[in-house]
């Protein structure tokens, strides 16, 4: 079995299994902790809607905070949108997900996605530099932050190398690309990448709790 077959076969299957295993473990492990009944008289009844509302409204920064975090917002938006385009709007990637889930959707020209990929990588590098130099980020960062950065940047970098045939033969680069995705999948549930699923629960929780009180969200 050569590298590419290993990557497309067992590596992918097992990393996906670990991905699902880890997500289930972490989510269930948290969600099944005890919940106290809140006896206070709610100000608003429809707390679910409050949760849903915050899940979406927190995607957009409050005017109050825009200026002070402008750099952060700019980098985060560029990076997240870039990553979204690269992951979901590149035809081969969509076909991977279609194979897995049966879902399909229109995609963008590959050439355009390459440019976005390069931009995303550049943003990632900028974010790393910022993390290593900003006093707050430098202080609060730990292994998880840097490792999660690496496992996110690797698939982008190897993907770009693969399409540009740089450094090794295409199938080798493709295999490394897939293996780097496997690494990301395996790390995802155990590190902060998990925020991609937790943000719904975390925002939803605050949204619902605060909606009950009518507090600002």
């Amino acid at each position, binding site marked *: 079995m050569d590298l590419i077959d290993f990557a497309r076969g067992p590596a992918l299957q097992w990393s996906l299994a670990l991905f699902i295993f880890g997500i289930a*473990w972490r989510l*269930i492990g948290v969600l099944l902790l005890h919940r106290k009944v809140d006896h206070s008289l709610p100000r608003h009844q429809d707390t679910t809607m409050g949760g849903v509302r915050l899940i979406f409204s927190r995607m957009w920064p409050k005017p109050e905070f825009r200026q002070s975090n402008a750099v952060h917002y700019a980098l985060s938006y560029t990076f997240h949108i870039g990553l979204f385009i690269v992951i979901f709007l590149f035809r081969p990637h969509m076909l991977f997900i279609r194979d897995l889930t049966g879902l399909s959707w229109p995609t963008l020209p590959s*050439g355009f996605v390459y440019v976005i990929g390069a931009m995303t990588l550049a943003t990632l590098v900028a974010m790393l530099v910022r993390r290593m130099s900003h006093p707050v980020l430098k202080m609060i960062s730990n292994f998880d932050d840097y490792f999660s950065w690496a496992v996110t940047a690797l698939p982008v970098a190897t993907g770009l190398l693969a399409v540009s045939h740089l450094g090794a033969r295409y199938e080798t680069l493709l295999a490394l690309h897939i293996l780097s995705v496997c690494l990301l999948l395996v790390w995802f549930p155990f590190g902060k990448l998990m925020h991609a699923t937790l943000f719904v629960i975390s925002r939803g929780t605050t949204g619902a709790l605060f909606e009950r009180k009518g507090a600002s969200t």
Partner: protein
Amino acid sequence: MRDKTVLELLQARGVSRRGFLKFCATTASLLALPPSAAAAIAETLGKTRRPSVIWLSFQECTGCTESLTRAHLPTIESLIFDAISLDYHHTLQAASGSAAEAAREEAMKAAWGQYVLVVDGSIPLGEQGYYSAIAGVSNLEMLKETAAGAAAIINMGTCAAYGGIPQANPNPTGAVPVSAIIKDKPIVNVPGCPPIPVVMTSVVAHYLTFGAVPELDHLGRPKSFYGDTIHDRCYRRPFYDQGKFATSFDDEGARNGWCLYQLGCKGPTTYNACATVKWNDGTSFPIQSGHGCIGCSEPNFWDKGSFYQPLSAGIWGDRQATLGTAAVAGAAVGAVAAASTRIRQQHASEEK
């Protein structure tokens, strides 16, 4: 005849000096050699004694030989190869039975240490190798015996080169490629199912001309023919970059000749000359005819998932069971973790 040079033998077959020069020029071009190499080829062939080629067919479908004989009109390289040099090929030769085997033994004896051994088909190792035998001699035995006196071995087709279809899962005969058995001879792989005819004859001619194997890639293939992927040389490549894909074999995209990636084309990971040399004397190649590349010149091409599954899709085992088990197991471990935390919290509260 054995004492004559290649040039003399060609001239005896009505090839003029000009025709010969032309052959040298086109061979150099085909092998991606500099134009100055043409003169060297001419000079070598003018002096080289007639080479000897022994072709052994093992566990194979004769597709490679069929491909070889589908060269429309005789070319000089095919003349050099089969008319001048080929001393044994049990499908093509007139002799049969013990006469044929005698021809092989005689050829081996006459040019011991100097002949080129061409192999098509893989070698079964199961049942002491007797899944396939010729004249009572197992393929394994015949290969070892014949390879011992060969100057070099050229594997024609994916079966001889990488095991091919006989070796595909579940490989009932225990088939292996030549390289699994012979370790001490220069080996050139000319994979493909079948290989392109002109590639087969050119590689043999190259060896006969230069007396050495051409530059090979990490899978033992001549870089001149297997240096680029089908995808990189594909005339449909611009559609890939534009994001225009055929999504079924009879949709608008298919009619417009768009990229076949989504229909499972293995062009991006397949190294071969189909997109440039093409087939049937330059008429077409699979992608041009509307079907994706199946990657037949790559090892294990038969076992790399469906031909119609896009390259980016995974090659799954029992996916649903594995992932389902993972989800259930994860949930169970999570539940245990939560329960143990609750119990610990209970204890902590009581402690106070």
